């Protein structure tokens, strides 16, 4: 810390608290970690007005680009700017290497699990994963049983949520195997950050992520049905009212493929077509951003008009690839999650590189008793929910909320899991002209086609409210650009 005037840095840190939680920037004794030196120096060298000016110019850039998301359950202002923090989160090459290997291993095992469950179900017969757990999962799709999917790839696009524990270790909190979102924020954050801190960025040597859309396109192309050398690839969106609509348009544009809605598609003789100004055009690969339930009213929910009638039969006939496949939500069920380390062992005979978070299954009577007795210390989650919905955070809950959850657990134990309240890592965020630590997670994006591709980094999500542990954008979370260093 020679170059930065220590006084300025002290003002910047102000009352910055450090406790047992891992701080991304500072070690327990308050020193700035080695790979954060250059960032700290840059911050200390900028006058406060200059920081504010850069913040404002970045704000404006997000607004005019229309980088927004939709919050459900509110009447007005359906579009909001995605909140973000100006300071990048840094990950060293060594840390990233472990994450990358761990995720590759995990996604491989999850795909093998899905293929197994939907064909021979060996892992169930060998009693490694309880049969009743799988068949009682609400995302298990009987319709997928015995269906051959291209390259045996069930999940091609994954976003796994990682946390860093007090000892600095990264663990997996959950896998998102249905329609993970947020990758567009990763890409746009990077664009804005490059303009906001150009010198700092180039001095760090940050590994690029901008080629993600190209990799995604290549992944989708590799999954095209046989005999379709020039596949027509489309992105299926629920439409303009979906919370991730911005992302759908962004990805379609970046890949140069058509963005279709269910009403653009028709099936005839088990072939999917889209309606174009030149008549009907055959569709070969669908990158689906519509949930299973809403994809085909003839097979799934009959009251949905978002999907395309007949899509599933065309898929079954092998005339169109839909990715991610249907029924993949089975493997990101929060109770099935507890068995992922066993899957890795079972299918790959390896030890997991990235560990799970300790998880209590409430269908087990002993664990259930323990959880019910300790509701004020644990986090309880509904197994099939995502986005921070259907969750009880024990230490931050009221007696009444705990009462409600206890009743719900007793009524349907299979529907819930519990985990210890994690003291996961915090990273500095800019508030006014000083820094405060906030909890962060990391969602890297994994692509699985003819091979596994993970762009270095991902979306760092921030719980922007003081003391909050919820990073979901729908619940007041924001994001940070994530720099994986060379």
């Amino acid at each position: 810390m020679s170059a930065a005037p220590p006084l300025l840095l002290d003002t910047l840190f102000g009352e910055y608290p450090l406790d047992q939680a891992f701080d991304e920037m500072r070690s327990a004794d308050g020193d700035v970690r080695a790979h954060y030196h250059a960032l700290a120096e840059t911050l200390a060298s900028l006058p406060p007005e200059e920081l504010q000016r850069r913040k404002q110019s970045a704000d404006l850039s997000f607004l005019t680009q229309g980088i927004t998301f939709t919050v459900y359950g509110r009447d007005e202002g359906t579009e909001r700017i995605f909140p973000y923090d100006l300071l990048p989160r840094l990950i060293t090459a060594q840390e990233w290497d472990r994450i990358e290997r761990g995720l590759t291993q995990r996604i491989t095992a999850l795909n093998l699990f899905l293929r197994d469950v939907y064909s021979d179900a060996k892992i169930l017969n060998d009693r490694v994963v309880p049969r009743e757990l799988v068949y009682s999962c609400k995302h298990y799709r009987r319709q997928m049983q015995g269906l051959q999917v291209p390259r045996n790839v069930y999940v091609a696009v994954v976003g796994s949520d990682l946390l860093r524990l007090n000892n600095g270790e990264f663990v997996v909190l959950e896998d998102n195997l249905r329609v993970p979102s947020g990758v567009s924020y990763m890409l746009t954050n990077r664009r804005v950050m490059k303009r906001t801190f150009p010198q700092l960025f180039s001095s760090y040597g940050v590994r690029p992520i901008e080629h993600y859309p190209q990799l995604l396109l290549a992944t989708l192309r590799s999954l095209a049905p046989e005999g379709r050398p020039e596949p027509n690839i489309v992105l299926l969106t629920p439409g303009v009212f979906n919370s991730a609509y911005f992302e759908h348009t962004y990805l379609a544009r970046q890949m140069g493929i058509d963005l279709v809605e269910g009403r653009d598609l028709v099936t005839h003789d088990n072939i999917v077509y889209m309606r174009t100004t030149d008549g009907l055009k055959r569709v070969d690969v669908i990158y689906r951003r519509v949930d299973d339930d809403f994809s085909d009213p003839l097979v799934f929910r009959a009251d949905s008009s978002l999907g395309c009638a007949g899509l599933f039969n065309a898929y079954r006939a092998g005339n169109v690839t839909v990715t991610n496949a249907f029924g993949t939500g089975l493997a990101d069920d929060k109770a099935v999650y507890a068995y992922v380390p066993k899957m890795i062992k079972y299918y790959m005979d390896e030890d997991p590189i990235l560990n799970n978070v300790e998880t209590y299954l409430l269908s087990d009577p002993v664990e259930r008793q323990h959880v019910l007795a300790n509701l004020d210390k644990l986090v309880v989650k509904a197994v099939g929910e995502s986005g921070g919905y259907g969750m009880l955070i024990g230490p931050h809950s009221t007696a009444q909320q705990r009462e409600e959850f206890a009743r719900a657990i007793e009524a349907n134990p299979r529907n819930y899991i519990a985990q210890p309240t994690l003291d996961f890592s915090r990273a500095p965020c800019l508030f006014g002209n000083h820094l405060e630590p906030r909890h962060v997670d990391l969602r890297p994006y994994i692509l699985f086609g003819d091979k596994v591709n993970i762009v270095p980094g991902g979306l760092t999500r921030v719980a922007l409210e003081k003391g909050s542990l919820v990073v979901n954008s729908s619940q007041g979370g924001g994001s940070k650009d994530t720099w994986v260093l060379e």
Partner: protein
Amino acid sequence: MLSRVADSLYWMSRYLERAENTVRQLDVTMGMMLDTGGASEKARWQLLVAALGKPAGLDWNGNLEAMAHKLVFDNLNHAAVTFCVNGARENARQVREEISTEQWQRLNRLYHQIHSPQAETQFSSSINDALASIIDGIHLFKGVSNTTMIHGQGFQFMRLGRYLERAYATATMLEVYQPVLFHPQEREHEGYQYLELVGLLRCCTSFEAYCQVYTADVSSARILEFLLLNSDFPHAIRYCVDCMRDVIESIQRTGGRRPPAELISGIGRLHAMLDFTTIDEILQGDTSAFLHNIREQCLRIHELIYRYYVHYSIQSALAS
């Protein structure tokens, strides 16, 4: 291109054209009201509303500023500027991947500008400035559309929307103002009729272009000739119809499917009607009916475009 996308681009463009038309006509009408020797404010307002296609809820209440405010900021009125800009943006949002980032940013900025609290303040301090800045926003959008978007089918559908809307709106306006043109009120002083005629030209941003062709010697017959039959001026109906024909040809070239005879002959008929006539013929006949006929044909062309490119039946598409 996807039919739904073509539909959105077409309407995005139509809505912006409509907004621009409303702003310009409002601006000109308010300017004419300054010359008190002419028609009453009420009469002028009624002409304006008729020329905009008689949208409901705009009956004269004696307060010009309030009326103008309504015509600009009413989110529910189909002719109002905010309604049109909202509609354009909503359509753009649904085809965000088809238009360029620059286009989206311009349109988004126009939308935020018109909905900001400052817009109302600016409006009450200077209506002219407020209207001018809206027009600027639309022009910027059209400019970046020309320079940043691929001139493929999507672009052609945008052109189609713009020129169809313009031809229709100009025909409506001429039909409404035609009595003013040819049956001027008796007035004490000279000069008022000149203002009327120039005002009409300004509604179509065509005063300067008119002067280049005919000099400042304005006459009713020449104005009508210019706005109906000129083939070089972008606000003249004949120019618009030329463009529509050109668009259909271009869509066919890039798509490869032949448009149905009905559509070709529909546009061809309107085209020929304007190509093979003279202003004298039109004036000798029923001018009003002639203008009305243009509008009818525009509607018919719109319908054919939709039947063929957007709402076609699956059976017909599979058969071909």
